[in-house]
């Protein structure tokens, strides 16, 4: 540890900058990234304050490991009150800006106030300046990054920025970095836009000095050698996470046509990963300090999008959400991803809405009169692409989506709400069908930001692993039957704490047991901590840090008045599948409520999901907000 574990506070209204060092005890309790962001948000956001109030902060946090020699500690976390849902909001992305922020002398930035004209922050070697962004305002996310690097005269400046969507306060606008990286969900780009903050540019030359350099090298060597021999590493190194499409579509775990089906036969011969690898993928790229390189650089060589070059996409937006909108054209899917990257729109939320509109069209709830003549038949590329333009330009049917789901439902009316699948916290679902999950259903839907596979999806639930292997991972006997309701509360809890630790240390979840049973767990992460510091931390203490982070995020939502009903998945998941090999499978409300009881009890929460006083004392949360930072 060096002098980079600091928080920079910026008030864009008054141009004041304050810098505080993070006490070691807080680092030990919350690490960094998501953890310290959660602490800062709970301490700095005021109860009931609207997300777009200038005093509602947007917080950036590099992972505790970011910038150090560790495997894939590339993640940065962005937190704030969500303009999309009005409750806890946060999102996490890779790239190289987390490490750069540490080299520039900061682990976190807390940004408040509203600038009187467009600005960007220039964070460099321990200093924070506000720079005029009038000429950059209006640019897409690629143009803005290139322009800022040119303006600052250094191609190695790392930039996180918003596109036109964030500027125009689309409530699900995201924050972008490089060509592919996105802090996607819950509208953190909208928060930046509301502060007239176009970008955060970072460059630093300060090194990070681990407590035990030789030990850190040895841990890195050991973990690298292990990692590179695993099957999952070698699959991901070639096709990225696109194998998940094969696994999940064959397993009928995805949303097809807005959750009406779970299998997409039209994809055969069209969305195959082999086709992408043969005809589109040209190169693999990686986030900082990651050997796995899950990211593709692709090139569309023919058809209406010929000449388009882009990066990504991830299997979720590129494939899963193609199925969600009935789209079996890979070039359309790639082009749409590229457009969302440039505009700075969360592709998940946007395509969820498109799927919704297409089902409304199918059911004749909306017609050409509503769509301005656009045909919303399943998979129609024109409807998919035009909706995106409309969202960003705030015009037509797409325009009403930019204000969020409540406004859209109110404007469309006619019983349309039934077909927009949102979790209890108001966030639209992702693309995974929770009818067939048990641990994941409760794990994802108790997430502080609303349904989130990156907070509580238990991939291990569906891998048919031997019970002994599961017992070794979860530390207690768990039921390997994916449809069983037994022991699933613990599986969800364990994964949630692991995810919290990943997002706080900055380690990508693709390196961990969230992704694959043979990858890293608490034990491996704590090895790195004990080389970076003299804490002699145990994996139990690290897991407790995960629990503390999970609880302080919960406290934020409890303070906003959220409770049990906000942890319930949308009604669609309680309607059994009507067809396919999983016909008849669905969540059952009674069973889900029982599972929720068990889950709350495990966490030390009351029946409404509020942490009990003894739980807060045990986790040293009873004095929060303590305003140490």
């Amino acid at each position, binding site marked *: 540890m060096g002098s980079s574990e600091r928080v920079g506070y910026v008030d864009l209204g008054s141009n004041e900058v304050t810098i505080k060092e993070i006490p070691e005890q807080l680092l030990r309790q919350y690490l960094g990234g998501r953890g310290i962001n959660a602490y800062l948000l709970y301490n700095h956001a005021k109860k009931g304050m609207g997300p777009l109030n200038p005093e509602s902060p947007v917080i950036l946090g590099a992972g505790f490991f970011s910038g150090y*020699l560790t495997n894939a500690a590339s993640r940065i976390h962005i937190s704030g009150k969500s303009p999309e849902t009005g409750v806890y909001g946060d999102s996490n992305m890779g790239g190289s800006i987390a490490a750069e922020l540490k080299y520039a002398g900061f682990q976190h930035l807390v940004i408040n106030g509203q600038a009187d004209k467009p600005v960007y922050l220039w964070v460099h070697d321990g200093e924070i300046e506000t720079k005029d962004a009038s000429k950059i305002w209006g640019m897409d996310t690629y143009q803005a990054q290139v322009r800022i690097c040119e303006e600052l005269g250094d*191609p190695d400046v790392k930039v996180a920025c918003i596109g036109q969507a964030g500027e125009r306060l689309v409530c699900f606008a995201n924050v972008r970095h490089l060509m592919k990286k996105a802090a996607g969900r819950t509208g953190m780009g909208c928060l930046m836009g509301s502060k007239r903050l176009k970008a955060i540019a970072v460059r630093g030359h300060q090194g990070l000095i681990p407590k035990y350099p030789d030990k850190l090298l040895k841990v890195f060597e050991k973990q690298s050698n292990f990692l590179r021999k695993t099957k999952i590493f070698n699959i991901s190194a070639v096709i990225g996470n696109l194998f998940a499409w094969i696994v999940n579509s064959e397993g009928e775990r995805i949303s097809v046509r807005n959750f009406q089906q779970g299998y997409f036969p039209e994809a055969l011969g069209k969305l195959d990963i082999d086709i992408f690898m043969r005809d589109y993928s040209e190169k693999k790229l990686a986030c900082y300090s990651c050997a796995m390189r899950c990211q593709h650089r692709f090139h569309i060589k023919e058809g209406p999008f010929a000449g388009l070059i882009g990066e990504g996409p991830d299997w979720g937006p590129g494939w899963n959400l193609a199925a969600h909108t009935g789209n079996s054209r890979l070039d359309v899917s790639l082009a749409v991803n590229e457009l969302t990257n440039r505009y700075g729109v969360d592709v998940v939320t946007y395509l969820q809405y498109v799927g919704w509109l297409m089902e409304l069209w199918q059911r004749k709830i909306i017609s050409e009169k509503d769509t301005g003549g656009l045909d919303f038949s399943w998979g129609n590329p024109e409807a998919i692409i035009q909706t995106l333009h409309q969202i960003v330009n705030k015009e037509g049917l797409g325009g009403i989506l930019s204000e969020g789901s409540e406004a859209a439902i109110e404007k469309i009316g006619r019983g349309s709400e039934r077909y927009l699948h949102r979790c209890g916290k108001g966030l639209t679902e992702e693309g995974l069908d929770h009818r067939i999950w048990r641990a994941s259903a409760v794990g994802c839907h108790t997430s502080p930001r609303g349904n989130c596979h990156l907070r509580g999806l238990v991939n291990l639930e569906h891998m048919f692993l031997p019970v002994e292997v599961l017992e070794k991972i979860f530390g207690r006997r768990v039921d390997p039957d994916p449809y069983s309701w037994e022991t699933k509360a613990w599986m969800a809890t364990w994964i949630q704490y692991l995810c919290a630790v990943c997002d706080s240390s900055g380690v990508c979840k693709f390196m961990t047991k969230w992704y694959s049973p043979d990858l890293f767990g608490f034990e491996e992460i704590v090895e790195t901590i004990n080389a970076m510091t003299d804490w002699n931390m145990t994996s139990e203490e690290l897991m407790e840090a995960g629990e503390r982070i999970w609880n302080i995020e919960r406290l934020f939502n409890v303070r906003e008045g959220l409770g049990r009903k906000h942890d319930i998945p949308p009604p669609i998941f309680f309607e059994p599948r009507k067809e396919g090999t999983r016909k008849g499978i669905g969540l059952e409300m009674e069973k889900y409520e029982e599972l929720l009881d068990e889950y709350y009890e495990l966490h030390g929460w009351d029946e409404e999901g509020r942490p009990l006083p003894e739980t807060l004392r045990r986790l040293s949360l009873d004095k929060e907000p303590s305003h140490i930072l």
Partner: protein
Amino acid sequence: MRNISINEAVCTGCGLCELVCSMCKENECNPDKSRIYIERHMMEGAMIPRICINCVDPPCVGVCPTDALRKDEVTGVVQLEHDVCNDCGECIHTCPFRALRLSPRGELMKCDLCSGYPQCVKYCPTEAVRY
């Protein structure tokens, strides 16, 4: 002689080479103190590792005003004598491969092949840098 070779087509830009180098040479994690660095071109997706490849007839040796750089006739390695180097940067401008640079402290940095066991090569996941 055994030498460094670069295949930039497969470089992913992960920067593990930079981190490992700075840890081995400086005991800190700092890509700006690494003897190898990656030139990153976001829009082109190009990642170009820059490291000394010990030219047969190295122009840096010819321009060095203090004779701090010399080509070892036995090993073929271009060697830098830190005590003699005045960090003037003439070699940096002369190197056609942009393999030399100054550290944030203004000191010339040059790969010394880690005494025959280059650590960047050991950890490069795609063999973009080989020895």
